């Protein structure tokens, strides 16, 4: 009885040691089985030698996020952190004079209309006051930003009614002078310190502008993060 059914497994060394020994013993005495084994070996070699077909395109699905997305996410995260840090710092600076002039706080109540006025005229010329005039710089930086209009913050120190004319004066001045945003932050910092002495704590939108920026960047970072994870 020829062990034909075991010949392929013998060739592939997939038989148990006993079965292998038995096939080996048979092969030593059987020329037919040796021929069959040689044929199977030749067949296996031919199958292995088949030419390699090449796909016409890449078959690897794109599952990794594009580089720009990763970079943008890193940037947004850092920008968000930086903006929130600036928010904390500038809020601390702006609350410092208020704490000093707490007695004058009631005078600052009707301010929103003044701020609105100022914002209306200030929005058309998005520029800051001349740097030399630190006395007017504070109300100007308040009016220079349209954020004033939709930041009705009850706790924020705002210009008193007496400041109204000064504020609009300052807005008129704006048309001539201009400065970079960072310069106006500096202006403000100076102004905040000077105005603490004059009992007129300025309304300062910058902390809130930083907060809005920080939240916006955090949102971008969050959305990108989810995209990156699901990719």
């Amino acid at each position, binding site marked *: 009885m020829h062990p034909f059914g075991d010949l392929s*497994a013998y060739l*592939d060394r997939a038989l148990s040691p006993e079965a292998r020994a038995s096939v080996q013993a048979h092969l030593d005495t059987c020329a037919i089985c040796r021929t069959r084994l040689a044929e199977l070996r030749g067949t296996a070699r*031919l199958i292995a030698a088949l030419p390699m077909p090449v796909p016409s395109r890449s078959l690897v699905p794109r599952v990794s996020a594009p580089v720009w997305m990763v970079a943008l996410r890193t940037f947004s995260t850092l920008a968000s952190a930086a903006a929130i840090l600036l928010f904390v710092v500038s809020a601390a600076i702006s609350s410092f004079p208020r704490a000093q002039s707490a007695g004058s706080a009631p005078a600052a109540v009707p301010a929103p209309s003044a701020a609105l006025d100022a914002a209306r005229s200030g929005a058309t010329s998005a520029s800051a006051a001349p740097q030399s005039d630190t006395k007017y710089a504070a109300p100007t930086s308040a009016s220079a930003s349209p954020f004033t209009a939709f930041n009705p913050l009850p706790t924020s120190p705002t210009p008193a009614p007496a400041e109204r004319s000064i504020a609009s004066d300052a807005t008129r001045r704006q048309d001539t002078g201009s400065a970079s945003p960072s310069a106006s932050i500096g202006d403000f910092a100076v102004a905040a310190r000077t105005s603490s002495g004059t009992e007129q704590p300025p309304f300062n939108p910058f902390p809130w502008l930083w907060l809005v920026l920080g939240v916006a960047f955090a949102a971008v970072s969050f959305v990108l993060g989810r995209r990156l994870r699901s*990719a």
Partner: protein
Amino acid sequence: MRPDVGGATEALLDRARRGDGRAFEQLALEVQRPLYRHAARMVGHDDAEDVVQDALLSAWKSLASFEGTSFRAWVFRIVTNRALDRLRSRRRRPELPLDPPAEDDDAVGWAEPAAAGPELADLAADREALGVVEEALATLPAEQRAVLLLRDVEGFAYEEIAIITSTEIGTVKSRIHRGRVAVRNILVSRGWKGSSG
């Protein structure tokens, strides 16, 4: 010698499991051509690209549930299953098995050479002989063909093939043998005798 024995592949697999898409793409890049070769001989060149691409995407999606160590064996399993599914869906009666149950492997018929011809072992580089082998493979039942290709082309061990095709090792052994004998018979019927060693 196998690509997935290397520590680099293991590290890539580890990273890919943790959601690193770039690591997965690198792993897939290493196996895409063997996968395509396998799929093309299973379902033909036209469908093979789709089968491989779908299989790789599905591998990425279920990578977290993959607990084995051989990424290569795992993706071959997915590709083989997809290819067999596609072949079944092409048939009019998909419920019938692609490979009818085996009879006694010792009883598999051996065709006698029609005439004397060059020996098989000498024909490995012969285009004509390889063409006959391609044709012969195409006539095999799909499950037999899958197993034979996994063994002779991809070099998987019987145990690995049993896992890849979700079959008993006895079935693997039987399919490899019957597939080889069938290819040998077609070669012999074309006038070749493969008696060299």
